[in-house]
C-alpha cells in the first residue's frame, strides 16, 4: 500500500495512528518545498497546514496516476500561489538574468584549445576539505538562499527530492528543457560558491606560511 492508500484507509476507518504516520512522513518534504515557494518559514508552515487540510479532504479522489508525494507537492504548489502575486514579474526578471553562461570565461574561446578549460576547477570539495565540512555546508546553505526562487524550487525537487523531470513539470509547470537550464545555473552557482570559499581558504593558509 502506498502512502496515499494508507492515508485514505486511515481517514475512512478513523485510524488516527496510521494517518499520523503518513503525515509525519510527508510533512518535512512539504515544508522543504514550500520554503522554496514562499518567502518565510512561517508562511511555508501556513501553506503546508492549508495543504494538509486539502490533502485530507481530497485523499479519496487521489487516483494513483502520479506518486502520492508528487500529488501532495502539487497541492503545496497550488496553495502557495496565493502568496505569489508577484511571481510572474519575478520570474521574468530571473529569466533576463539567464542570458549568459556562468562558465563562459572558464573555457578557451578560440585557438586549438577552444571549448577546453582555460581556468580549470582545482579541487574536489570532499573529502579533501572534510575538516571544513560544517563550513562548506553553511556556505552551501547561504548560496541556496541567494538562488532565484525558481532555481531553488527546481534544485530542491530534482537534486534533493530526486524527482524525475516529468514529475517536476507536473508540480511546477516548468518544461524539462527549462528545468535543464535552471538546474545548470543553480548547480553552477553552488559549485562556484564552494570553489571561491576554498580558494579564499588557500590564500589565507598561504599568507601564514
Amino acid at each position, binding site marked *: 500500500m502506498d502512502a496515499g492508500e494508507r492515508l485514505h484507509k486511515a*481517514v475512512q476507518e*478513523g485510524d*488516527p495512528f496510521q*494517518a*499520523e504516520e503518513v*503525515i*509525519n512522513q510527508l*510533512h*518535512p*518534504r512539504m*515544508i*522543504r518545498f514550500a520554503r522554496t515557494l514562499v518567502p518565510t518559514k512561517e508562511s511555508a508552515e501556513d501553506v503546508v*497546514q492549508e495543504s*494538509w*487540510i486539502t490533502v*485530507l*479532504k481530497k485523499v479519496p479522489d487521489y487516483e494513483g496516476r502520479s506518486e502520492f508525494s508528487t500529488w501532495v507537492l502539487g497541492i503545496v504548489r497550488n496553495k502557495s500561489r496565493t502568496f505569489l502575486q508577484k511571481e510572474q514579474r519575478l520570474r521574468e526578471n530571473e529569466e533576463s538574468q539567464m542570458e549568459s553562461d556562468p*562558465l563562459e570565461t572558464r*573555457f578557451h574561446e578560440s585557438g586549438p584549445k*577552444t*571549448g*577546453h*578549460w582555460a581556468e*580549470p*576547477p*582545482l*579541487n*574536489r*570539495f*570532499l573529502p579533501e576539505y572534510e575538516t571544513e*565540512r560544517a563550513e*562548506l*555546508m553553511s556556505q*552551501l*546553505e547561504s548560496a*541556496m538562499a541567494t538562488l532565484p526562487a525558481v532555481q531553488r524550487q527546481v*534544485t*530542491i525537487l*530534482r*537534486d*534533493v527530492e*530526486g524527482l*524525475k*523531470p516529468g514529475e517536476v513539470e507536473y508540480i511546477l509547470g516548468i518544461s524539462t528543457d527549462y528545468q*535543464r537550464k535552471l*538546474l*545548470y545555473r543553480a*548547480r553552477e552557482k*553552488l*559549485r562556484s560558491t*564552494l*570553489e571561491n570559499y576554498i580558494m579564499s581558504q588557500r590564500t589565507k593558509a598561504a599568507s601564514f606560511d
Partner: protein
Amino acid sequence: MTDSSSLPSEKQKTRSEEQQTEAAEDMDCQEFVQIVHDLLRTEPEGLRSPRLLAHMRDCPPCVVYLQQLEDIQRLLQELSAAEDNAIPPERAQALISDALKG
C-alpha cells in the same frame, strides 16, 4: 555514489591509444559539462559511458568538475537531512481529528 564510479575504469585502458585520442577529441570540456549536468542524479549510470570515461582519462580538470558536482549532491542531501521540518505532534493530531470528524 562512490568516488571510484566517476573515475575511468581499468577496463578502459585496454583500448588502443588511437581510439582513446579519437574518443577524447570527439568531445570538448564544454560538451562534457553539459552532458554531465543532464545525467547527474537522474541517470547516474550514464556517467560511466565510454565517451565520458575516455574524456575523463585525458582530462583531469573534468574529473575534478564532476567530483565537485557529486560532492555538492552529497552536501545537499546532508543539509536537508539536518533540517528539522517535523510537524509538531499536537498540530498533526488536530489536523487528523478535524479530518476524521468531517
